[in-house]
């Protein structure tokens, strides 16, 4: 039976290549998505009526529609108005926008949970509102938003598989190609499943290390 050899020699190499693409997708999308989330949340809470409205609208759209639709609009739709993205770039853009919207909700909730006295005390010292937001509010809000944002990051690890739907050959895509060629769907996708479970474990571990490092007594 060529079971094990099949997996080792034929399936694994392309899968590992695909995993590498997945990792590249994530390394770009996760930090950028978080950054966008911070900006949108800040705009929503501290911006004027127009900015706040736009940020709210952004969040409504990107949380109320499937990621797949967003990816299709970016990869298949935008070219019709002259904006061209490679499959990889389209995927990253979609992931950043989508996860940014979800992050912004967690961060917004966290900001609003900070007592108003913190802002008052910062301003009483003579800090401008901007300085107070950066040095006093955000450090606390981001710590509070960490559980929610960690959750969202783990989701993104799994939903990165949708990049295949816009022809970016990451792990799932690589698997489908190999599986189709050799008619061995079950084995291939079980291996893929294991790899995703490993990826999620690694990311979860990193996130909990980050959480530990940022922990401050009394700040939950």
């Amino acid at each position, binding site marked *: 039976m060529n079971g094990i050899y099949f997996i080792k020699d034929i399936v694994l190499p392309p899968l590992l290549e695909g995993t590498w693409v997945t990792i590249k997708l994530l390394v770009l999308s996760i930090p950028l998505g978080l950054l966008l989330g911070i900006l949108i949340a800040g705009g929503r809470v501290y911006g004027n009526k127009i900015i706040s409205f736009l940020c709210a609208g952004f969040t409504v759209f990107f949380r109320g*529609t499937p990621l*797949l*639709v967003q990816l*299709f609009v970016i990869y298949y739709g935008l070219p019709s108005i002259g904006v061209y993205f490679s499959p990889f770039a389209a995927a990253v853009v979609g992931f950043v926008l989508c996860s940014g919207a979800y992050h912004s909700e967690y961060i917004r909730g966290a900001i609003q949970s900070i007592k108003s006295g913190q802002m008052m005390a910062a301003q009483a010292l003579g800090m401008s509102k901007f300085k107070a937001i950066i040095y006093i509010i955000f450090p606390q809000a981001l710590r509070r938003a960490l559980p929610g944002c960690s959750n969202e990051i783990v989701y993104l690890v799994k939903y990165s*598989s949708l990049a*295949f739907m816009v022809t970016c050959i990451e792990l799932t895509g690589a698997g*489908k190609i190999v599986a189709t060629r050799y008619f061995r769907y079950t084995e291939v*996708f079980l291996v893929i499943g294991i790899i995703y479970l490993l990826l999620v474990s690694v990311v979860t571990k990193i996130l909990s290390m980050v959480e530990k490092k940022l922990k401050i007594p009394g700040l939950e």
Partner: protein
Amino acid sequence: MTENFLSIYEALPYLLRGSLVTIGLVGGALALGLTLGIPMAIGQVYGNKYSAGLISFYVWFFRGLPVLVLLFLFYFGLFAVLGLDLSAFTAAILVLGLRSAAYQSQIFRGAMQSLGEGQMLAALSLGMSKAKAAWHIILPQALRISLPGWSNEYSIILKDSAVTYAIGLMEIMTRGKFIATRTFKPMPIFLTCALIFLILTYGGVKFLNLLEKKVRIPGYGTEREESY
């Protein structure tokens, strides 16, 4: 500009028929998830070590794998291995339903555990068996507490239903792509798809919120989470 609106107008009936498929898919998956999720939750909270362990494994598997991978695994792989020849629709309901069961079981489990052991103890002391107590006392309360989490689950399954495009199910996304390629008007078509999803999401959640209000018991603190 007018050709854009024209293309939307012509595509709409076709797309809306797709949304019927989507709604059927979502409803079926939620129902399957509910039917399996409740016993799984009961098994985890009140069952023995082995059943609880088995259920935990199930939950870990179905929550840890991406939806797309589960769809490919089952539709192209496992169902064939088991000799089942299922339509994309049936396969999709099964996969999304099994996955939803994993998530829903955790919602119900959390709700049941938040009730505290007092309820079960009181029921047992009245002479009820564990099963009767779970059904008549624990469940009615747990289900009400679960409603906010459940409306979240609805919007998640709705969005995940789009992924069934990958196995060729003729729901909204597949039809949208079909038309977009033929009419060379991807932008308006896909934005229309987005709009349909927005309406389904927002409308569905509103409906579930009304439902929650109707079954609310005075004095029960249910935490309102933001959900879409």
